[in-house]
């Protein structure tokens, strides 16, 4: 199959993405694209393939077949260059419990070779309102505060593409506000966001476009303008066969 060269306006372009775990299909021929400045929200029930999709897009898992371009570059070609421009907020925080918030950020900042690291750490800690807890060990923070620190880690290197895998788990209202601000900032500078969630209300609030994933396939896609917020839960139920 000849590979279509993605349009440069796409931040994320996925073609024919398939993932098999043994004989089980986690993803079946996913095609999607996210333009610069867009936030795509992926809805779907448990086991739909949302996390697998995000893990492939963030280059943690290799696809069985299909192609992914991030910022116009195939992820198979320049992995280190792409990793510098992407980030992931997942179910887990990726933070070391026995290190402080500051030490964790310093560690990741050095791994990403972030310029003016001390200043940048101050900025991202301020964004997530963790100034007073910056020298506390992550293990002593509540789940909500840990997730805020995780958001700080994710944006530390100024990514232009951000993946969020059910980020609302354990989040307090302040952290939701922080996410909203950060998504706004990323989109404003031409970055892109792909977010998976179960939470229809919160997802629609962030979305410029949505897809519903069920059993590894995209069963519904629409732009924000095409979505009726009142009837969307029924659409979701119908598409995921839970209604």
């Amino acid at each position, binding site marked *: 199959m000849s590979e279509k060269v993605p349009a440069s306006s796409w931040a994320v372009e996925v073609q024919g993405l398939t993932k098999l775990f043994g004989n089980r299909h986690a993803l079946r021929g996913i095609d999607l694209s996210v333009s610069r400045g867009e936030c795509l929200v992926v809805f779907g029930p448990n086991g739909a393939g949302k996390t697998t999709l995000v893990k492939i897009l963030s280059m*943690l898992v290799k696809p069985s077949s299909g192609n992914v371009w991030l910022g116009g570059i195939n992820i198979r070609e320049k992995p*280190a260059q792409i990793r510098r421009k992407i980030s*992931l907020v997942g179910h*887990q925080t*990726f933070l*070391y419990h026995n290190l402080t918030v500051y*030490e964790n950020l310093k*560690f990741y900042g*050095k*791994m990403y070779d972030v310029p003016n690291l001390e200043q940048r750490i101050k900025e991202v800690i301020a964004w997530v309102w963790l100034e007073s807890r910056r020298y506390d060990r992550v293990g002593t923070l509540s789940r909500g505060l840990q997730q805020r620190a995780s958001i700080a880690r994710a944006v530390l290197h100024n990514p232009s593409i951000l993946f969020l895998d059910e980020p609302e788990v354990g989040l307090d209202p302040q952290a939701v506000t922080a996410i909203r601000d950060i998504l706004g900032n990323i989109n404003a500078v031409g970055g892109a966001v792909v977010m998976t969630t179960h939470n229809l209300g919160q997802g629609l609030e962030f979305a410029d476009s949505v897809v519903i994933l069920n059993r590894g396939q995209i069963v519904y896609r629409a732009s924000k303008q095409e979505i009726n917020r009142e009837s969307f839960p029924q659409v979701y139920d119908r598409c995921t066969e839970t209604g």
Partner: protein
Amino acid sequence: MKVLARILVIFWKDILTELRTKEIVTLVLVFALLVVVIFNFAFGTRTGIEELVAPGILWVALTFGGVLGFNRVFVVEKENSCLEGLMLCPVDRSVIYWGKLVGSFTFMLAVAVVITPIFLVLFNLPLFLPRLALIIVLAALGFAAVGTLFSAIAINTRARDMMLPILFLPVVVPVIVAAVKATAPVLAGRPWGDVLTWLQIIIVFDVIYLVVATMVFEFVLEE
């Protein structure tokens, strides 16, 4: 230089974590000390022990202590999926391997620095043995090279505590044998010639382990 800097960043993080938890060094130290003391009660300080039994005792303590330590090397990365956080970083997978390897190697040396003098005193052997130090450094490097790789494999298995020794011990047998054989003439005060062949074997296996582990680590992490 950036590669080296990132290896050292991972090492710094592991040292900081270990200084806070003291999990690995304490665990390995207590185990190795017990082994040395128990064997000392069993064999005492009778004549000829320095060649016949003592080298085996030292390396049993360091090898099995090492297995306990390697079991913990990637546990810290498993908590909160920190390994995924590392894999997201814009570095080659081999950088992660070398960062963890330098940490494992340092922990092994730290344990050896404490255990070896105690072992030498208990078995009434001379304390100043620079050739033994060289053997320990080279063998510890081989152990750490294999242990770090297999620790990354075992961490994703359910029975990781059992899986690691099953994977690790057969592969490091050449280094264990060479280390025991090299230690015996050193403890007996025999010349360099008796030690050199075994040292060369350890060096060859160190190089093989390091090269192969660096090459396959990416597949270990991603599959």
